[in-house]
């Protein structure tokens, strides 16, 4: 039985709170040092989407994203967290502009890392043009910030995963941490099934979805650098570790990343299922990976050792 919340220390709360289940606000509150979050353009300013009302859809005063700054283990950090329960965390005009602005501020300062807590299905259909433009602006802002020396860390472990433009932005980050529930991809399962048929991808086969797009596969492929258990505390520790690990950004790193991806395609491009990839990677009993407990999986992933640390 969990003790009443008021009797717990912040660290205990972060340890006992599921990142997957928590709201964007709770995630940030527990991820950062207690009481350190200062929000920019908070809900009290009611910067709502100018488009949703045309469709008679409910608005949210923060447009589904919180941006701000706070402290992580005493050091300053910029943060952004998408609320996956509002329109699936999708990018719209205001939502996107808040993240772009945060990244540009980080670029100007140059030394403070940015944490992006992704939880998104991609671009909002109701404001698709503005949303697509926002994705492009954010990708540019991420790269400019990184070029200015900023570490941009993505954390993926929410209900809506990290899809569409979110998947593209995640690919631009300095490093990613993902939990088992986290999914990272561009086209979602239903989109693939709709366009290519159920024989290509059965979106209702959720085990297939997870072993193709889920956290464990992304970690083993080296697309994510760390695998976190699901508590907010686990993500906090992963964020701290990644900030310590990320090296300088430059042409050499990009070339290494290009080579890493080309090599991945050469080795695994013909595989029909993630289990084949894991087997080729030298994992015995690869079919048991989805059932593996977190600690055993992390040990295995570290042993396989594939990571993009030298690349990106």
């Amino acid at each position: 039985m969990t003790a009443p919340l008021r009797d717990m220390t912040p660290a205990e709360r972060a340890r006992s709170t599921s990142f997957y289940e928590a709201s964007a606000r709770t995630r940030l509150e527990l991820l950062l040092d207690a009481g350190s979050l200062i929000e920019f353009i908070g809900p009290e300013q009611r910067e709502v989407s100018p488009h949703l009302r045309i469709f008679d859809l409910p608005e949210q005063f923060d447009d589904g994203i919180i941006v701000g700054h706070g402290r992580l283990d005493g050091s300053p950090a910029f943060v952004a967290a998408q609320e996956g329960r509002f329109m699936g965390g999708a990018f719209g005009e205001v939502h996107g502009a808040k993240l772009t602005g945060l990244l540009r501020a980080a670029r100007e300062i140059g030394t403070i890392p940015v944490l992006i807590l992704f939880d998104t299905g991609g671009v909002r259909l109701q404001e698709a043009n503005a949303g697509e433009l926002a994705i492009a602006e954010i990708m540019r802002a991420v790269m400019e910030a990184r070029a200015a020396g900023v570490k941009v860390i993505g954390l993926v472990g929410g209900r809506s995963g990290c899809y569409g433009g979110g998947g593209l932005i995640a690919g631009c980050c300095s490093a990613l941490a993902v939990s088992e529930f986290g999914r990272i991809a561009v086209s979602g399962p239903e989109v693939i099934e709709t366009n290519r048929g159920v024989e290509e991808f059965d979106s209702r086969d959720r085990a297939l979805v997870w072993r193709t797009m889920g956290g464990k596969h992304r970690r083993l492929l080296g697309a994510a650098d760390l695998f976190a258990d699901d508590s907010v505390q686990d993500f906090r520790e992963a964020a701290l570790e990644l900030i310590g690990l990320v090296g300088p950004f430059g042409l050499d790193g990009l070339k290494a990343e290009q080579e890493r991806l080309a090599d991945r395609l050469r080795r695994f491009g013909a595989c029909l299922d993630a289990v084949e990839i894991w087997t080729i990677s030298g994992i015995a009993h690869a079919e048991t990976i989805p059932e593996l407990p977190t600690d055993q999986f992390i040990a295995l992933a570290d042993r396989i050792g594939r990571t993009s640390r030298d690349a990106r």
Partner: protein
Amino acid sequence: MTGWQNNRAARDERIAAGAGFGHGKVVQARDATRLLEAVIRPGDRVCLEGDNQKQADLLSRALLAVDISRVNDLHMVQSGVVLSEHLDLFDRGVAKRLDYAYSGPQSARIARMLFGGKIELGAVHTYLELFARYFIDLTPHVALVAAVSADREGNLYTGPNTEDTPTVVEATAFKDGVVIAQVNEIVETVPRVDIPADRVHFIVKADQPFFVEPLFTRDPAAITEGQVLTAMLAIKGIYAPYGVQRLNHGIGFSTAAIELLLPTFGERLGLKGRIATHFALNPHPALIPAIESGWVRQIHSFGSEVGMDDYIRARSDVYFTGPDGSLRSNRAFCQAAGLYACDMFIGSTLQIDLQGNSSTVTTSRIAGFGGAPNMGADARGRRHPSVPWLKAGAEADPDGAALLRRGRKLVVQIGETFGDKNVPLFVENLDAMELAEKLNLELAPIMIYGDDVTHIVTEEGVANLLLCRTAQEREQAIRGVAGYTEVGRRRDHGMVERLRERGVIRRPEDLGINVLDADRSLLAARSIKDLVRWSGGLYAPPSKFRNW
């Protein structure tokens, strides 16, 4: 010529006509349609086994393909109309008349076909009622059933999903009907004999296992905090004071929340062993944490549930299992158990009116009744006493003579005042009334009659209708927990307050429940994966419920 064994002679003729299509009783799947054309006569009553879970799907497709100059105008008498083929039969003219109980996934299409006059409707039944009519006036001429395996003599192993099969076969085989079974495999020896061979006339080997729907799996991840709150209110406001030990749960998320709160909230209230020990219930995965924590002593089941087989096998102290170790379910017996041997039914519904009548029918969907009306009804034939039953009886009639006073079954409707898509749970008039008028039905399809309902639980509180003395009090008690729905806003505030003083309505604070404590962290499992962990890896959820 008059005689006294005409039906038997007719049955033997049918069997002889079908005998040419196989070796002994065994018929190949490709010959199934020809077999049915030989055995079935126009206008026959046919039970095509469609339960709410398992489906004789191969035989459905075979029947749909018959030559309609030979087989037509059938009268289908089956508990579940679930597959699209079940309704295609009526579109093609293979079948004409229908008596059934449940039509979950086909509820919209069946409504359209009834409006369009494609189906001649006998009646929509409860399970037990339809089974009863199998033995009186709806006895099948031919039964098409599904089993896991058969031996060459025709002994059937139905596996954990026995469900309706014994009842259907009993009614058909012992009244000169023909029984045809589709089986997943033919074996030397069946693991156990669920249906003896002398009641089975033909066996068709299916190329694929029969379809089973995981109908009773509720993903804990989708339980809302509102549902956690109503579960807390139900446990503290009803289970505890009545000491309800023998009960049935509906299949919604509200009752799944209760199942998941027993080992946490229930434990904290010291209720273990005092409530929720004996169930008439399918093997709900959501009950695993309560079972593992030692809450549940015994469960009898209507059917099984996909993924629960190994868990059930390993927990035979709790479930009913055969000599082979696998679950033996039986819908008819479990319905009888729920009706006569349980002191409470608790479940959700779509609409409740001012008298407490409830219905899951909307003007465009006719989902049928299934088992809820049997579970959610006072059994007038009940004679054995129990604490909750007597206490409820006394609340309803405090001045009656104790030795002559009937007890009352607790029939609880639980839900949030605004349901899925913000549709209000409470209405002035049920959609079922409008439907009955449009279809010229003699009875509106009411799931649970208001005079059977004893309690209504919403996030606003618990209304105890047993304590209402007039129709007006009853209406205000319902309005008093109807929240901000139109029905709730039209309450008489003074009267609702007086009802609260009398304990007819109890708010969360009256029960010592802080609404802010209704948090998902109270759930013993918050995901399907948590359930797998609780089961020690024995529960194997279907892929559609996984997020790993």
